[in-house]
């Protein structure tokens, strides 16, 4: 109910021009069953806030974390899970996924991530492409991923809205939508847009064409924003006499960014381009929340930290295209340690394979950083796949760390989560045990997987 109120507040404050029916469209209908009381004891906890509790307990009650710390007393009536000294972390958050919009099997008929028909498609929403029965989703759950952010692809300068989803089985995308998560807008720098449109002999075909394209879009957005403001400022009588500016899906989204309600997630590999994108943001008065695939973030780590921008990176992917040629293993560590530890580093996957072991990817990046002379403990590196992506998605008040009143998205690992040999053993989403290594009926198979290998068995 609180969530619902928040959404109503959020939507009404942000899109005050929209009617109530328009504003209600596509709202989250996710409502978990009551988890009851669960007490996880004797756990080695990486809290996601930078702390490590060597021998701690967590109390979950009605889907929320109600207590965490050492020497908690066991409440009566709670289901007790003895972690036997095993590691516990917040649920993992992948800020860059295309699950549901590029589903498996990878077929032309399910390739729904790039509306590559025009360089600015701010009017499309990734959630309208999501196939909820993508079998990649439960595999990610087995890897400890409890929340993921689905973006349109990078063919376009402005690709459309992204959506943040809870990693749960649902018949509808509304049923997966993270309650209260702000919308995001995908933008893309560099090679992809200029290749897609340059290849059709249309604009943009160069990086300078890319930049002109973004600026043109923001100029249109400012015009629309002014029209809306002008109409709003009129007296009720005056409003009676003239029509409100007509709705424009593309410009509504862009104005949402200018109003600070929609968060920019910007695919951008090169250092120079990140700096240019920050200038465009200054020119039009919006904020870049995170650069994704930021292969060269280490070259501009201080600039990113000065501007409060996160960089979402891979641990070691490189070389598939020219702008991915200057990869360094220490990228995440250098971003993290910028300006005396003020940087915001995120490890993302962009891959249904990588999403299953973001913990290992973070481990590689942490080890590379420490080898380069930094001192980055697990308790800090875990933030790269929990609290930092939560911040960049605008949901860090609800998930990303094990703190009071947050959603009980929790992973118990069968070993050190920073090891190749470790696997998630139990994964809770809102306090509900959706994956248990010892229970073969979990995670719940998608519809696709039923009887797909032979008529007797499911795929998982």
């Amino acid at each position, binding site marked *: 109910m609180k969530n619902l109120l928040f959404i109503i507040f959020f939507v009404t404050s942000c899109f005050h021009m929209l009617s109530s029916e328009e504003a209600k469209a596509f709202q989250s209908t996710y409502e978990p069953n009551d988890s009851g009381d669960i007490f996880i004891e004797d756990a080695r906890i990486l809290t996601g806030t930078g702390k490590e509790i060597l021998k701690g307990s967590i109390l979950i009650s009605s889907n929320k974390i109600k207590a965490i710390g050492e020497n908690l007393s066991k409440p009566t009536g709670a289901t007790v899970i003895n972690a036997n000294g095993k590691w516990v972390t917040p649920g993992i958050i992948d800020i860059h996924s295309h699950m549901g919009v590029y589903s*498996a*099997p*990878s*077929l032309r008929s399910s390739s729904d991530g790039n509306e590559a028909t025009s360089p600015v498609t701010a009017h499309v929403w990734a959630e309208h492409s999501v196939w909820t029965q993508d*079998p*990649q989703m439960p*595999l990610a759950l087995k890897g400890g991923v409890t929340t993921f952010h689905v973006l349109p692809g990078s063919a376009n300068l402005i690709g459309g809205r992204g959506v943040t989803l809870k990693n749960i089985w649902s018949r509808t995308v509304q049923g997966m939508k993270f309650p209260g998560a702000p919308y995001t807008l995908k933008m893309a720098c560099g*090679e992809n847009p200029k290749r897609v449109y340059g290849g059709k002999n249309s604009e943009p075909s160069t990086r300078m064409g890319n930049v002109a394209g973004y600026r043109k879009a923001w100029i249109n957005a400012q015009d629309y924003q002014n029209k809306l403001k002008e109409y709003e400022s009129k007296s009720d009588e005056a409003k009676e006499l003239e029509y409100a500016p007509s709705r424009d899906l593309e410009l509504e989204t862009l104005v949402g960014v200018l109003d600070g309600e929609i968060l920019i997630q910007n695919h951008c590999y090169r250092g120079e381009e990140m700096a240019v994108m920050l200038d465009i943001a200054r020119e039009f008065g919006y904020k870049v929340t995170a650069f994704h695939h930021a292969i060269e973030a*280490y*070259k501009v*780590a201080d600039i990113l930290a000065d501007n409060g921008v996160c960089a979402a990176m891979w641990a*070691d*992917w*490189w*070389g*598939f*295209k*020219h702008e991915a*040629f*200057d*990869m*360094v*293993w*220490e990228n995440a560590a*250098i971003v993290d340690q910028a300006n005396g530890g003020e940087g915001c580093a995120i490890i993302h996957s962009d891959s*249904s*394979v990588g999403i*299953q*072991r973001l913990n*290992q990817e973070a*481990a*590689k990046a*942490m*080890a*590379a950083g420490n*080898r*380069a*002379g930094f001192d980055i403990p697990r308790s800090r590196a875990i933030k790269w796949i929990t609290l930092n992506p939560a911040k960049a998605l605008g949901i860090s008040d609800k998930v990303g760390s094990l703190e009071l009143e947050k959603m009980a998205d929790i992973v118990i690992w069968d070993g050190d989560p*920073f*090891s*190749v*040999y*470790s*696997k998630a053993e139990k994964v809770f989403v809102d306090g509900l045990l959706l994956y248990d290594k010892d229970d073969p009926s979990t995670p719940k198979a998608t519809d696709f997987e039923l009887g*797909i*290998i032979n008529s007797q068995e499911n*795929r998982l």
Partner: protein
Amino acid sequence: MNKKILISLFSFFMSFYSFSEELLLKNAKIHTATDKGTLETADLLIRNGLIVRIGKNLSSYQAQVEDLSGKVISPGLIAPHSQLGIVEIELIPETRDDRSEIYSAGLNIDSAFNPSSTLIPYNLTGGITLSLTTPSSSGLFSGLTSVFSLSGSLEESLIASNVALTANINGGEDSKAAKILLLEDSLDLASITDFGLSPFITKGEVKNALTRNTKSNYYEIFKSFLPADVYYSARDLMALKKVLNREIPLVIQANRASDILALIDLSKRKNIKLVIQGAAEGWRVSKQLSEAKIPVILRPIDNIPHSFNELGARLDNASLLHKAGVQILIGSHETHNAYLSRQGAGIAVSYGLPWQEALKGLTKNIADVFNLDKRGSIKEGYIADLVVWNGDPLEVTSFVEGVYLSGKKVPVKNRSMKLKDRYLDN
């Protein structure tokens, strides 16, 4: 004891008569990738690029000695199926030498191999010392695999040419049945061809060549064997002949259980050596693979049902195949990060593959299947391609501290490290 003194004296005197170079690596944990498994603390004596002794408390008067206490040594890892040296940037065609429309089965990529590719020192830094570099043309036959050292040497990188023929029955619009038929017909054609022909067999040339050839009326046979738009050069047919003569294996990319069975059947009928690459559903036919003694090249992190040909992909595939007695070779998804085969091996271990088998999958088994003589294990008489690690080679937080190629320490430095140094110092 006397024997030891005698050997030492012998080496001492021998050093006056030869230019033998000796290196003694002491006190390391040694993963041999042999049936001896792991030696907790041992020494390695290397002479003229070969491992000559493995044991405790070795000494030598003339050897250069390195104390590797606390370090771990493994054989150099081998990339079993990559485009190392023939691809620089995937999306830039002018940096790619891995594809051909001119040749198919006969494509040998030796002359295009670039020892100065940035991928070579990078993957050496990741622990790879040898690459089975394989073209990746999109037709049925991709071409021939050659073996290269990652030494970066302009003149001495090639270790062995044409060690396998690679084919692929997936992809494209054509029925897999048609591809398997074409595979069979191509082998049949090669089996009846001799090489008195001109290098290119275009239709006209074939006719001319054959009318001159008194031996037979092959042209009629060719026509009945192959569809109109398929042609092979003599080079292509020669590659197929090598497969037919069991000189080299045919490596076929296949994932679906029923496809694998069809290929096993073909390999029996043609009496050829087969290796299955991919084998995502291999676990479903592990018994048949084991009985036919067909090795598999796996990427153990494959568990996504990317297509309807691999719906049964799962992470314990390697473990299940090994249990059934199938020889496992472990590769990586990407050429640029060919060395990440070791992470895949670690993941396979976490799903039940014994650790020693995982290491063999990265080293010894690859050398065995492709006949890489004296490579892939730490064994007396073997070539000293070695990697020194700061910990478990399969662990993601471990890294390479040193590399020896044929007993010579080589620099562990790459372009990426130089970039890091530049920006870290700022």
